[in-house]
């Protein structure tokens, strides 16, 4: 078991070195890739349930007060992750395990109360690409709100694709083609290369849910810096969103309203009853529960609870628009989750605004 941060970094570095050599010599990886999952946490590590969905967790402290080993057991399975809680709200979970095993675990782990994954809309993935060399992307769009027989002739119920290229041109061209022809162009992941004087520092794939896989690399510190930059950007956006939560404060001259709603603009008109039924049924991926307490033919008002934190929210739904009202202490990750999942499962062309313009 790893005892310190430097030991962890060394082990990750050994893994990427071994994979780099193996790729060059045999054309395939010799070990499971180094992966980092960023998650959003609203609690301390000692508040994590140690048993859930058949998983049993053992938390092992290390010499670094922010770094913990997480030994996970399920039936005969046993695997290890390292959880870095240095950033209070955004934890990094490092692992060098089978991707499928970790994905299944993370799915359940981030479904626990007060924990959530990141939800990066495609605009955020675009921003990540803009500072590096973009050498691929994947799209996994699936219409989850409406059944196939409810869709129009031009609607797409599912689109899955993955492009990996050596240079940046094929990726940009294909994406442009999709966008111009109104195909779902919500990226599930983007593949970026950090290269300096022909020296590949890392080739990482960043997924919308905060998972980052090191496909190739020579310096693990560069990968960690990259992950930290993603956290910084997400955190900045979170602050913007949370500064916009609605509040009412008393002043000498009356009460002052702070913040404003968020306005969601769909790319076409939708059946709002059907939409509400899917969005506020408390299940994955939206994780929202609510009741409709006002309605007319083309307007619904919802009082809801974010199942992730238990925070209340209000929402208006119209055929073309939605409005989200977040109260003062609500978790802003709900805006990321709602908007990103609408992009992935309903309407790739959806936009979200606050009073000052587009949020993303």
């Amino acid at each position, binding site marked *: 078991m790893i005892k310190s941060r430097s030991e962890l970094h060394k082990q990750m570095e050994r893994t990427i070195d071994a994979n780099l050599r193996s790729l060059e010599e045999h054309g395939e990886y010799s070990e499971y890739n180094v992966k980092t999952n960023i998650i959003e946490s609203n609690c301390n590590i000692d508040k994590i349930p140690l048993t859930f969905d058949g998983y049993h967790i053992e938390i092992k402290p290390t010499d670094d007060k922010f770094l913990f080993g997480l030994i996970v057991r399920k039936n005969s399975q046993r695997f290890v992750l390292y959880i870095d809680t240095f950033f209070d709200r955004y934890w990094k979970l490092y692992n060098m395990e089978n991707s499928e095993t970790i994905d299944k675990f993370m799915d359940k782990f981030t479904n626990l109360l007060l924990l959530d994954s990141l939800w990066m809309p495609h605009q955020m993935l675009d921003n990540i690409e803009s500072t590096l060399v973009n050498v691929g992307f994947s799209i996994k769009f699936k219409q989850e709100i409406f059944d196939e027989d409810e869709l129009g002739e031009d609607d797409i119920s599912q689109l899955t694709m993955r492009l990996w290229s050596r240079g940046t041109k094929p990726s940009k061209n294909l994406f442009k083609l999709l966008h111009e022809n109104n195909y779902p162009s919500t990226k599930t992941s983007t593949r970026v290369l950090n290269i300096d004087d022909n020296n590949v520092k890392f080739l990482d794939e960043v997924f919308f849910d905060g998972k980052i896989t090191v496909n190739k690399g020579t310096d693990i510190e560069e990968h960690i810096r990259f992950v930290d930059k993603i956290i910084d950007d997400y955190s900045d956006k979170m602050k913007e969103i949370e500064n916009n939560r609605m509040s*009412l404060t008393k*002043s*000498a*001259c*009356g*009460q*002052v*309203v702070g913040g*404003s*709603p968020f*306005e969601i*603009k769909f790319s076409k008109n939708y059946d709002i009853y059907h939409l*509400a*039924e899917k969005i*506020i*049924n408390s299940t994955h991926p939206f994780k929202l529960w*609510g*009741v*409709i*307490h*006002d*309605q007319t033919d083309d307007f619904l008002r919802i009082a809801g609870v974010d199942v992730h934190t238990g925070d209340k929210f209000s929402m*208006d739904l*119209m055929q*073309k*628009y939605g*409005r989200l009202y977040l109260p003062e202490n609500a978790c802003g990750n709900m805006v990321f989750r709602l908007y990103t999942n609408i992009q992935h499962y309903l309407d790739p062309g959806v936009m979200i*605004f606050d*009073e*000052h313009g587009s949020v993303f």
Partner: protein
Amino acid sequence: MTNTDQSFDHLDIINAVLGLAYNFESYPNHLFKAGYKLSRIEPIIGVPDSINPDILFMSENMGLFAECKGGKFKTGSNLSRYDSIQVRH
């Protein structure tokens, strides 16, 4: 998902009027377009014979009070009381 009875009360009216000053496409945002911003809810203005406006909107050089009434309220008598407000620069 459960539906409850439709409710439309004083708060809804206030919210609807507030919406007029927000910069959103989905609201009728006429007050925003006219340059008004929300200043106070239930502003305290210290006028004799107590008028109690619900909202004060402000533009660069204008103030706009809103009293939100539902049902059969008669608003006429209240209007004259606003004449007693004196604005100091």
